[in-house]
């Protein structure tokens, strides 16, 4: 697995699950992402690393439709996400199209963003009921199973304020999974946690990677985890992918001077 080369696995035969084609994002004069091309194969696990301000979180936020894009197109599962086909041409997606496509994607946030007025169980039931149309019983069963999977089967009726950061983040993972997405996005999911709580969250993600055939994109500062867990690592710098490759090879022998410098700095920090 570790001696793959830089091309996306299976890219020749199957369409990628996620494709960024010439995607540009600007805030005023500031170019956050500069004509990004990135394919992620189905079931592939991609770690996105890089210095702050390099545009890595923006990649996830655009894919979750939390940010609009200025140029290019994002595709998910063979369909355009940011655009829709009308009369043979691609036009900007309307809210209905965005809602339909968003159903393929789930996201876990740095600051959990749980609904503080709902219990862990209710957090995981709300969207399946109101969006997917599940009955209360079905939703409760699904939420209960997922919360057990993340090790919180005994905390169903706890409010977020009664849970530790690590527990809250695990609820957030269960909540995203309850929508059965094809693609899961993890945005620095351990950055807001005390170091001793990171492990429980990472081990849940590890289990997910083993037992579910999800496509995963994660922005992370946990280099050890990226190396061990990801199939591929993309190093972002100044709005571009400066270097990418299979995780093991990437960390063992980074080619670019800038990558080496970044990895050295990160390793020294731990």
């Amino acid at each position, binding site marked *: 697995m570790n001696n793959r080369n830089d091309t996306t696995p299976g890219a020749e035969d199957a369409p990628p699950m996620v494709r960024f084609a010439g995607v540009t994002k600007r805030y005023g004069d500031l170019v956050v992402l500069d004509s990004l091309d990135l394919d992620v194969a189905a079931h592939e696990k991609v770690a996105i690393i890089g210095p702050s301000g390099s545009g890595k979180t923006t990649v996830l936020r655009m894919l979750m439709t939390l940010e609009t894009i200025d140029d290019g197109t994002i595709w998910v599962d063979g369909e355009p996400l940011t655009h829709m086909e009308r009369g043979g041409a691609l036009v900007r997606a309307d809210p209905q199209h965005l809602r339909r496509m968003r159903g393929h*994607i789930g996201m876990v946030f740095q600051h959990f963003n749980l609904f503080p*007025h709902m219990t862990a169980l209710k957090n995981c039931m*709300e*969207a399946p009921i*109101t969006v997917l149309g599940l009955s209360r019983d079905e939703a409760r069963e699904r939420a209960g199973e997922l919360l057990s999977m993340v090790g919180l089967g005994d905390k169903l009726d706890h409010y977020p304020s009664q849970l530790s950061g690590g527990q809250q983040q695990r609820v957030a993972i269960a909540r995203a999974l309850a929508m059965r997405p094809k693609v899961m996005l993890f945005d620095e999911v351990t950055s807001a946690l005390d170091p001793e709580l990171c492990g429980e969250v990472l081990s849940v993600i590890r289990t997910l990677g083993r037992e579910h055939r999800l496509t995963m994109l994660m922005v992370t500062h946990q280099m050890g985890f990226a190396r061990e867990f990801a199939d591929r690592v993309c190093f972002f710098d100044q709005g571009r992918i400066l270097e990418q490759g299979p995780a093991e090879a990437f960390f063992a022998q980074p080619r670019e001077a800038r990558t080496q410098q970044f990895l050295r700095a990160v390793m020294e920090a731990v």
Partner: protein
Amino acid sequence: MKIWDWDYAWEVLPILAEASVVTLQATLAGFLLALVVGLLFAVGRMTGPAWLRWSVTGVVEFLRSTPLLIQIFFLYYVMPEFGITLDAMPTGVLALGLHYGAYCAEVYRAGLDNVPRGQWEAAIALNLSPWVTFRRVILPQAIPPIVPALGNYLVALFKETPLLSVIAVLELMQTAKILGSESFQYTEPITLVGLFFLAFSLVSAALIRQVEKALQPRAGRRT
């Protein structure tokens, strides 16, 4: 002549008690209207298209910058010129509701602004519709912190109901004035009206604190 005539006070008390029902009705109906109107103003201002945001802002500023008394007169005497004729009581309720709705809009806005952006983003990531997001995620977090401020406006609105006497709504003040003009004894009815307002204000302040407390554990704490 006595300063305070107990017999007369006891005599007018039942009449004032009856009038207090009108005052309470105007207060509650006006406040309910203000709560709804205020929310609509706030949401229109936050999420509507530009033309709606600007017109709502204009209306809110207008309502807040002109005296309630003039608004009451206007609704009662000018609207019929445009073919809209309402009885005194509905007119009074409408005026109170619109005027205080404009104030409540500001309170709602503070409450809505106070909900972290991450909550909206989580709702988008879960694909919740805007309506579900608002009703199930945002409002339950926006309302509890603003209950005290809304409660203040309830008391303020209540204390302004005597203004309705200018369009002859038979609320407490109007009734007291009529009683006084009949007997030339104003001290007792006016004092009793004052005491009634004091009692109601204290009771509602206590009730608001209870509501505040009841909402606290549900809202939870953000960490």
